[in-house]
């Protein structure tokens, strides 16, 4: 070890003497002491996120309800994804337009809502994987909002409808082909029931 160090120092001195012939500014070796312990990262131990209660946190907005019903109202309702699963609407590539061929499904959802005035609706907008992540999150939302608009035209009160976009995070088929993509470009309808006794 000592020998190694000596060799290094010697090599260093020689290297400088050779390479820096005529060197104008021959600085001594500076020492940079670094704070922190062995094996510490560039970031110290970071504070992991604490719990956030729904609605109660500072800055939680729109508690009074906006264009659609407030989140809490829906959180208090039971999701029923099976009831309207048959009426999932599919979209063309990179489009949020509700196709004519899908109108029957939208009508079926409107009928279900008109039969049960206590129920509300959650529309989940989804995309295929062919698009950047946040672009797809916006596109999924626009699909859900387009379906809300279509239901509104059929007489459903839009305040009964909430939208959520999953972008491309929830494909029904993870495969990498046109058949899978067509299945994944969709709006799912989730019926929301009041909790028993509420």
């Amino acid at each position: 070890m000592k020998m190694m160090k000596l060799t290094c120092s010697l090599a260093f001195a020689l290297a400088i003497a050779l390479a820096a012939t005529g060197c104008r500014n021959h600085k001594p070796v500076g020492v940079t002491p670094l704070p922190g312990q062995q094996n510490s990262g560039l970031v110290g131990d970071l504070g992991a996120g604490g719990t956030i209660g729904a609605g109660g946190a500072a800055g939680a907005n729109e508690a009074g309800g906006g264009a659609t019903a407030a989140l809490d109202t829906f959180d208090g309702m039971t999701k029923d994804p099976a009831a309207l699963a048959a009426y999932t609407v599919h979209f063309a590539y990179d489009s949020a337009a509700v196709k004519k061929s899908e109108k029957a499904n939208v009508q079926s959802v409107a009928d279900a809502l008109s039969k049960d005035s206590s129920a509300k609706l959650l529309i989940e907008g989804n995309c295929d994987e062919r698009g950047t992540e946040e672009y797809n999150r916006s596109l999924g939302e626009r699909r859900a909002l387009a379906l809300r608009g279509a239901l509104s035209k059929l007489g459903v009160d839009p305040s009964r409808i909430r939208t959520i976009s999953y972008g491309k995070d929830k494909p029904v088929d993870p495969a990498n082909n046109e058949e899978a993509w067509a299945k994944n470009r969709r709006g799912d309808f989730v019926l929301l029931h009041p909790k028993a006794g509420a």
Partner: protein
Amino acid sequence: MKNYYLPLIKAGLPVLLAAFTVNFACGQQELTISHDITGLGVKPIPVSLDGFSGEVAEVLKFDLYVQGFSFVAPEAAQYQISGSSAGSVQGRVVDRFAKSTLLARSYTGASLRRQAHTFADDIVQAITHKNGIAQTKIAFKVQSSTGNGEIYIADFDGRNAQSITHDATIVAAPAWVPGRLAIYYTTYQLGNPDIFYHNLSTGQRHVVAHYSGLNTSAAASPDGSKVAMILSRSGSPDVWVCAADGSNLKQLTATPEDESSPCWSPDGQWICYATKVAERRVLAKVPAGGGAMQRIPTPGAPNPTEPDWSPDGKWIAFTSQAGGFDICVMPAGGGTPTVLVAGEDPSWSPNSRTLIFTRRVGGRYVLSVLDVFTKQVKDIARISGSDSQPAWAR
């Protein structure tokens, strides 16, 4: 050690002088280019790296490669980097053409890895007179096949990664507050995509945007006082801006189209974002205080999304989707985009020279860093699952 230095000693000055003479014209040219980085397509700076081993050698190679250096034999190098990593890092940079020692330094404390990163930054500073990136941090999301994920913080090379959320839900779009250990991100923890602010020193977090519909893509203003984001509360995804605490909400765009991925100009005057005009995806900008939208043409780069304005104000990087996805940069004042490499979602380093971005490999994403001017690119350490949506701390 011996093997490297002995021939030099034996050969002595004649060899050095000969190499110097032969390469003089070429060397001078390289010096000019490497010290005046104004355009793209720059050749890497040839350096030699001797005397380092193990982790230190790996760190130096990675850090320098992704900052536009190439590794050659000592006699072909413009700069000779030598030293040792036994016990601690010590190193030296010699300019072979100017015949001067640019840097001679030893490092103590912390870890060998940290010492190596610090030395890498000193090398970059000594040679290019610019701040290096070796001690910078990134945030990103790690997603499992269920779609759920967590937000992670790591060194820029992916090492020392720590999960800062433990919510087991969908997360997205982390964004740093400039100059602070704090980030914004989107989480579905409350059942809805909402924007949280998270103080990384204390672990405290609070809701910034929790409106009905979509709340995502937060971007802190350069001075940290405001945040731009995408909300759909008005009926379609639009760009909104509010104070850092969520107050003083203001709508900046009101199109029926879907806006996405806002970013700030470094002077805080503009917010650039992706939108659609006449069913075509485009980039646009809007004054941060409100005003008319202006298109930013990206000729030759179709379907632009995910813009990021460089901290020096000169460039806008973005993703173009032709067949696959490409990382492009264009002058922020307008001009022709340059396609750099295949990839998505670029984020600028604080020195406006390197980009971190995502690459699709099979069914998942990996993170890579790219030296914009030489196009040298390397994947960073992988965490698990799919690693995407990188944000470079500035």
